[in-house]
């Protein structure tokens, strides 16, 4: 065995000297995150309309939609989130953004839940629950202006209104329906 070969392991010293110290004193020194990093999501309450597109796309069910009384509640549980950002991709109004936040540990699960409460619109005909939020209705009108006359009605009232207008066209008088 030649001396050169024997001393080869000592090359470590030159490698170590050239690379210097690479570890950082986290959290005192900020750890490196690239611009592309996906952290927790943030839901813009002024844009979200409670449609649940994100809920359908969310692989781990971190986003859930529930209905209580007159409200639709969109809940985001960080404990289940896998930070894939699929919700941000599918959101029709761009209410969800992926942030760089990742230091999310907490001693209380309450800190890991974020909820957004939407009021459900009432049917302008019979006053019953409509199952949709006002922003959802606006969204529908925006994308299909023709629906403006119907979106504020529940399916029953919508049918009634349709039949009514058809009948009117065929010559029926208003009193026939209101009497």
């Amino acid at each position: 065995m030649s001396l050169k070969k024997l001393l080869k392991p000592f090359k470590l010293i030159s490698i170590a000297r050239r690379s210097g110290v690479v570890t950082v004193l986290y959290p005192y020194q900020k750890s490196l995150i690239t611009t592309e990093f996906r952290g927790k999501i943030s839901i813009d309450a002024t844009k979200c309309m409670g449609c649940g597109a994100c809920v359908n796309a969310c692989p781990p069910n971190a986003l859930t939609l529930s209905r209580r009384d007159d409200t639709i509640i969109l809940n985001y549980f960080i404990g289940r989130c896998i930070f894939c950002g699929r919700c941000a991709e599918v959101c029709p109004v761009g209410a969800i953004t992926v942030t760089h936040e990742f230091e999310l540990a907490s001693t209380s699960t309450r800190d890991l839940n974020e909820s957004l409460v939407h009021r459900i619109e009432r049917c302008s005909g019979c006053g019953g629950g409509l199952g949709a939020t006002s922003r959802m209705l606006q969204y529908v009108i925006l994308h299909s202006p023709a629906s403006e006359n119907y979106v504020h009605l529940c399916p029953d009232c919508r049918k009634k209104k349709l039949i009514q207008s058809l009948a009117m066209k065929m010559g029926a008088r208003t009193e026939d329906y209101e009497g």
Partner: protein
Amino acid sequence: MWLAISLYIVFLLVFLLIPPLYDGIERKIRAKLHSRIGPPTLLQTWYDILKLFKKELVITDTGLASVLLSGLLIATVIITASTLPLGFSTPITSSGSSLVLFTVLLIGCQLLWVSLTLTPGNPYATIGVFREALIGMINEFFLVMGLVALMFYTGSPSFDGMIWARPSLTYLLIFILLAVSAFIGSGRIPYDIAEAEPELASGVLIEFSGPLLGITLYSHYLKRAILYGLLADMILLPLTRIIGVAVSALIYPVMVLAIWIVFAVISVMLGRTRVDIAPRSMLKIYIPLTIAMLIAWLAGV
């Protein structure tokens, strides 16, 4: 006289306190070679040991034997340390056959270490002990041979003989022989196969925790310091004639640290050996070294 004794006690206390500090320095240096920051302070090993002493003592079926033997071990190691010259001839080491006493105590430490680690009966520990014993047997043989050669060379069974040792090739070869056996005897990679963390889950130490682990670790570091201290003495004692006792006593801890660091750096460069390869590789170093030593002696150089 009293001044000499009290000074000696101060130096001995310092010597007993520094091994964990040296380990702390070693960890920092190892971290540098690994390109990482390493432990926050140089005293980290001390903090670790102190923390272990604060933990509860777990007494298992064989715990009593472990506790007794660990007490015996640490006492023996400390006594061994006190028989070592600390860069100057101490009241103990100037006695007639101090080097013989030191040799016997050193072997005693090794035996106690083996019996202590044998107590838990854990399969990993048992395998570790067998490895330790195998390495130890070969290494101890050459260590004792080196020390005996030293006695013959200086013509005295006392450490004081070393003060008058004349530098020669033979002396250098004895030093190298003892340095190799100190390296292996201090359980460094590649010869830490008795502990071998990834293979045996810390092997001989697996069953120890709390104060018991603290004691075993401390005696391990102290034994290291004793072995390196012996080497430092081999360099410094002959030099006292030139530099004087006071300077030698002050340089001594630095010299021990230097040897410690050189050994630490060497072990960082290497991997762990295997129990069937180790004896062969050890003999490959020892036998030529012994032969060279004998030839040099006979040739009188």
